[in-house]
């Protein structure tokens, strides 16, 4: 049998229940939600609860509102796993404000105004954003574990935090930085509009730096310096003088655009890329290797760079995913032979000539695979 007092003392809110007992203090948030859900004024709810024996009812220092909007009544709901209400005498934490605003689809400024009108104190020291963004709550989370750790009013975020949040939200770090500033969070740098373009490449590849420098008329070294201020990844090498083919040979697809060649500090740049770049620019492979080395992409010392870039070598090397540090085994030779229509013996001989190490003592067959289609 449902108790007749239940609409006041046990209220379902989604998956949770807000319930009170006479022996414990009644949260003001419960009063507001009871009023909103029953369509009564908070003062009437307080009177009824008092009559039911609830002696200790939390109330604000300001006069009670005459009515409460049901959505507004959810704003004091704390951002915790189990349902609880924010104490009215405690300043509203930034985490709580942003979680509540996000839940209700409100801007932080709007949520702050509504909470203030209900009697809470929102200790923002400067105007809050008027635009809603439910992602705000993620922006101030510095540690996701347990109950989480959160930036509070006037806190400071590191550049690493900005980048981490950007990765979580899959957005540009500049977007994160400008919103954090708008929320009153301090950063180790002042965001600039140009940062958005500078930070577009998370790897801070040299090709990206040179492109941005070209677009903006700034020196590549200045772009790298800005990346450094922003705590972002940046190339270790910046050429003093740019050559016309630099962007082409630094691009994966040899088109002078992203995706850019990723620097590999363990095994170096692929010989395959050098030969393709040589063919695309009509320069010698040795010339390309030398220039890429200057740009921070070195070729492993075991590599034997052919005098000219040959299409067959390029087709062969496209099938090789072993580095000059790895052994190229029978399985890899057979794979390349399958993909190129060359015999395993021919493949083994050519890879050996290009500097690869083939440790297996195998008589590679001369028979060729048939290439379909």
């Amino acid at each position: 049998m449902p108790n007749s007092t239940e609409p006041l003392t046990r209220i379902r809110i989604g998956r949770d229940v807000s319930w009170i007992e006479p022996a414990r203090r009644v949260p003001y948030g419960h009063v507001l939600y009871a009023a909103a859900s029953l369509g009564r004024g908070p003062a009437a709810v307080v009177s009824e609860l008092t009559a039911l024996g609830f002696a200790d009812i939390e109330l604000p220092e300001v006069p009670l509102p005459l009515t409460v909007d049901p959505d507004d009544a959810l704003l004091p709901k704390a951002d915790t796993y189990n349902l609880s209400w924010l104490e009215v005498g405690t300043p509203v934490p930034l985490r709580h404000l942003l979680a509540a605003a996000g839940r209700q689809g409100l801007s932080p400024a709007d949520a702050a105004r509504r909470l203030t009108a209900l009697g809470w104190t929102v200790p923002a020291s400067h105007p809050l954003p008027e635009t809603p963004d439910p992602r705000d709550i993620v922006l101030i989370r510095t540690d996701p574990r347990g109950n989480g750790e959160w930036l509070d009013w006037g806190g400071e975020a590191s550049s690493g935090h900005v980048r981490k949040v950007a990765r979580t939200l899959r957005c540009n770090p500049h977007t994160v930085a400008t919103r954090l500033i708008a929320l009153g969070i301090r950063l180790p740098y002042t965001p600039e509009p140009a940062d958005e373009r500078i930070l577009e490449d998370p790897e801070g590849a040299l090709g990206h730096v040179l492109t941005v420098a070209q677009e903006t008329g700034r020196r590549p070294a200045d772009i790298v310096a800005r990346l450094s201020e922003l705590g972002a990844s940046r190339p270790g090498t910046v050429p003093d003088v740019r050559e016309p083919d630099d962007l082409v040979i630094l691009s994966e697809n040899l088109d002078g655009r992203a995706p850019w060649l990723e620097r590999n500090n363990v095994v170096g740049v692929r010989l395959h890329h050098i030969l393709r770049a040589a063919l695309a620019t009509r320069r010698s492979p040795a010339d390309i290797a030398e220039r890429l080395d200057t740009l921070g992409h070195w070729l492993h010392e075991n590599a034997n760079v052919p005098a000219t870039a040959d299409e067959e070598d390029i087709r062969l090397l496209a099938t090789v995913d072993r580095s000059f540090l790895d052994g190229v085994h029978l399985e890899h030779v057979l794979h390349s032979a399958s993909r190129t229509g060359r015999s395993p013996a021919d493949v083994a001989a050519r890879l050996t000539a290009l500097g690869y190490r083939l440790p297996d003592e195998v008589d590679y067959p001369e028979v060729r695979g048939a290439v379909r289609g």
Partner: protein
Amino acid sequence: MSYVQHAQNFYGLPVLTVPPYTPATLLPDAASVAWRLQTGPYATDEDAEDCWERFTSTVELEKVRALVLGHGMDGVSRLTDLRSRLTGLEALFLGDMEDEEEMISTIDQSDLAPLLEAFPGLRELVVRGGDGLDFPVTGHAGLRALRVESGGLPPEAAAHIAAADLPSLERLELWLGDDDYGGGTTVEQLAPLLAGDRKPALRHLGLQNSPIQDELAAALASAPVVPQLTSLSLAMGTLSDEGAEALLHGQPLTHLEELDLSHHFLSEAMMLRIWTALEPAGVRVNLRGRQEEDDEGWGDEDDEYEGSGRYIAVAE
């Protein structure tokens, strides 16, 4: 390289993981991507219910063609509840999780019968994880591609897939897995599949990641299904010279375009025999991932669980 990775592309579409709390105004057209839904591992991450609610209330579900469900997103009942709105759904990936999110052997799945019934327009289905999985023998009229990735596919589920009526199925890939993780499918349980029954459109068959790969190879050497195939995979398992020998002495395989034997335990001599027997006929043979037998295996000779010293690619 791990075999168990997040899908980057699915059903010919780039996979877009829906970022937490992100409003629909920042998301692309519903039909332009394969939508990946997941939640993070922490209590402070966006709640799965909230993520699902936000996605379903803001994205035009009628235009969604492909869905990928990741960590925290139990699939079947959520999806069947939305059958009237997900009217364009053609491709589904259940359980797209990597090892650090959840080991493949502990990913829960369920009976797929309600799902297949709810989505007659489904063309491609990928399931990762076998725990609790079942598949209806009544099958599905339109499904063209089915892949079950598992460290231990329940034998009953494998048998039901083998027996299922799938008249449009062109590609079937089963990671059969290890007995210790719920696997144990026998050749006999796959008999209807090997016989070529109820899957007239089948062109690619993968019986993979199996500790009885040699037995499967021997069965395929004379299986009636093989002539209708253009590609065959016995990858990721414990294939040895014994199984390869059976393939070489069985029915012709030269009609195949591809034979994938990657992750194997073949000798170099056998690798060369297979390659020289099939490649000149135009069969592309994948012999990557040669494994060395572990000399000691595990257990001892008297132990009924004595290991062969050969291990499948994905188990736990």
